Each structure stands twice: as C-alpha cells, then as structure tokens.
C-alpha cells in the first residue's frame, strides 16, 4: 500500500511536470531525486513551479486573446454543434431502423436514405475539422499556457449547453435511455471535438504538418464549412423552430424559398476564423522564405 502511495505521488509529480519545458523538467526532477524529496513534497514543489510559470504566461496578452477569440466563442459554438450533431445522428439512425430496404429501387427513397447519411458524415468531419483548427490556433496563441486554455476550452464545450434540450428529443423516446441522452453526446464531444482539438495542439507544437498539408487542410475546411453552414446555423438554436437552418421568411411570404434570409449566417464566418488564420499565417510564412531564396 505504501509503495503504491509513493508511486502515486511521483506519478502525479511526473504528470504535472509535463507542463514544464523539457529541459527544465529534467533539471527539476534531477534536483528532487538528488535531495531525496518525499513524493508529496516533490509534488508540492513541482506544482509551485508550474503555478509560477503559468502565472508568468498570463502576464502576456496572447493567452487572454486565445480565451476571448477561441475558447469562449468557438468553444460555445462547438458545444452547440456537437450537441445538435449527436442528437440528430441518434434520431436519423433510429429512423433507419424503420426503413424498408426493398424500397431502395426507387430513386426518391435512395435520396431519403443516403442524403441524411451524407449530411451526417459531412457535418461530423466539419466538427472534427473546426476543433482541430481551434486547437491549432489555441496553441499558437497560448504558447506555454496552452494546456490551461485547452482545459478552459474543454470546460466551455462540455458545459456550454448545460440545461438545454434539442428539438429532436421531443420526437423520439430513444432519448429516455441514459446512453442516448447522456453518454453518446459526451462520446461525440470527446471524439469529434476534444481529441481533434488536442491533435491540433500537437500539430502546432511539433510542427508535424508541412505547409502544403496545412494549406490544403485549411482550404478543404473552408469548403466544408460552406457545405455545412446551414447545419452550423441550425445547431445554434439546437434545431428549435427551424430546420435545417433558422430562416426569416422573405418578401414572398413563403417559407423555404430562395428569398428567405438566414439571420445567423455570420456564425459560419466566426467559426471560420481559426481556419482562415491558419491559411493566412501559412501563406504569409512562405513569402519571406521565397524572397530570401531569390
């Protein structure tokens, strides 16, 4: 039991020390080993240093910009989008259970089957893409405060829709089940938001993607956003009263016609800014290199 406690203390100290720069982490762990510090003292010492380092990071304006420009707006939008996507995916999947496959010979029925599936896949990929881009820009702005801003980002994503419901929940008994009502939306947030965001942070910190890959990914994400703009707008109201997108009826006084207005269209622009930032900085970084070579 005592050994387990000792290992736990050192393990925690090791985990916390990951927030330090690699060379400093090694020096600190070496100092603690040399002075024979106990496990809890080691943890306290490492926590103290990490707290001082983090406090110093927040003296800079960039982590604050990351919170104001990414964590709050994009985190909240991703919270809504992931919640809406999760519930809509459950609803669509349950509709397929009732689908008569023998009707697939009719073109109209094929559309009914494949279009929602295509929409779900496109929106899921967009969700992961927006999250990846957010993580990437979050890392570039936050620098050493990145894990604090990522934790705040996760908090906003998971708590952003607390106490709300979606329109499809009123139309399906499936949401009475704990898995569909609670577990599945959380899995979606972990799988399509949190993990891609962490991957984005990793991509930035390790510079693991070439400029070409970065540019191509950003362009692909821009196009995906155009394709899924109505989904994103609809997710902001969690589908209530509008589908697929919140609309204002135009001059013809008829709904779902060409002159309808989409009052939430700027939402897509807000969601696009991390992607646009990646594209611009990637292209901008290329310019001085090209000119220095010439």
């Amino acid at each position: 039991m005592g050994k387990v406690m000792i290992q736990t203390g050192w393990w925690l100290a090791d985990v916390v020390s990951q927030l330090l720069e690699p060379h400093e982490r090694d020096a600190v762990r070496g100092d603690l080993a040399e002075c024979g510090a106990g496990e809890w003292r080691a943890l306290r010492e490492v926590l103290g240093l990490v707290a001082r380092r983090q406090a110093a990071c927040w003296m800079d304006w960039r982590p604050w910009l990351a919170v104001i420009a990414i964590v709050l707006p994009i985190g909240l939008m991703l919270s809504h989008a992931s919640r809406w996507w999760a519930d809509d995916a459950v609803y669509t999947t349950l509709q397929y259970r009732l689908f008569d496959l023998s009707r697939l010979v009719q073109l109209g029925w094929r559309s009914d089957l494949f279009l929602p599936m295509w929409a779900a896949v496109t929106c899921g990929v967009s969700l992961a893409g927006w999250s990846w881009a957010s993580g990437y820009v979050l890392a570039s702005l936050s620098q050493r405060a990145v894990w604090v801003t990522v934790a705040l980002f996760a908090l906003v994503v998971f708590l952003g829709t607390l106490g709300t419901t979606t329109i499809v929940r009123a139309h399906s008994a499936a949401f009475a089940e704990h898995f569909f009502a609670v577990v599945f939306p959380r899995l979606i947030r972990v799988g399509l938001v949190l993990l891609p965001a962490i991957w984005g942070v990793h991509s930035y910190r390790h510079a693991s993607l070439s400029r070409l890959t970065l540019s191509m990914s950003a362009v692909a994400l821009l196009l995906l956003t155009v394709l899924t703009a109505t989904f994103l707008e609809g997710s902001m109201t969690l589908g209530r009263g509008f589908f697929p997108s919140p609309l204002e009826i135009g001059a013809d006084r008829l709904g779902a016609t060409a002159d309808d207005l989409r009052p939430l269209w700027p939402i897509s622009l807000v969601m696009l800014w991390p992607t646009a930032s990646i594209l611009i900085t990637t292209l901008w970084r290329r310019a001085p290199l090209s000119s220095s070579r010439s």
Partner: protein
Amino acid sequence: MILGEFEYLMLTAAARLGDEAYGAAIRQEIEDATSSPCSIGALYTTLDRLERKGLIKTWMGEPTPERGGRPKRMVRVTAKGVDAASSFYSAVRRVSRGVAWAKS
C-alpha cells in the same frame, strides 16, 4: 542595477560554489545560510530572471546517476552579475553603518 534580496542570495551562493553551482546545490546553500526553506519554484523563476538580466549564464550539464540520470542546470555568474552583487553588498554595508545589529 538594484538586486532583490533573493537575487543577491542566489548570486552569492552561485559565486561561492563556482564550477559546482547548479540548481540543487544553490538551493542547499541558501537554505543553510538563511535556515529557511527555498522552493524550487522560487529558485528556477529567479534563475530565469537573473539570466534575462545578464547576471548569470546557465546551461544543461551532464546527467549523473545520483540524479536518476537527469542533467543539472549549471550556473555561472557573469562579470555583470559580479558587479551587481558587489554594488548590492556595498549598499547594504553603507546603509547598515551605525545600526545596532551591524556592530559585530
């Protein structure tokens, strides 16, 4: 350049240790001299500050077995650091002249 009291302690400890000046050794020197605990947080953030001011130079040393194979952060006081510590010490001596606790 005006030093802080802790900065002065660190410069003095590092100068006393010479080639053996590194994080854990400086910390031990300060704890022995002041009979107060010195946290690793205070030590490393002050090392950074002193290095930014150009008063010390630090580099990573060789890994040693007693440190679990991890390297030391070695410290050397620069000429500017010697000047700053010397000025601080002179100021303390001047300001202490005639006061009861400075007689010994």
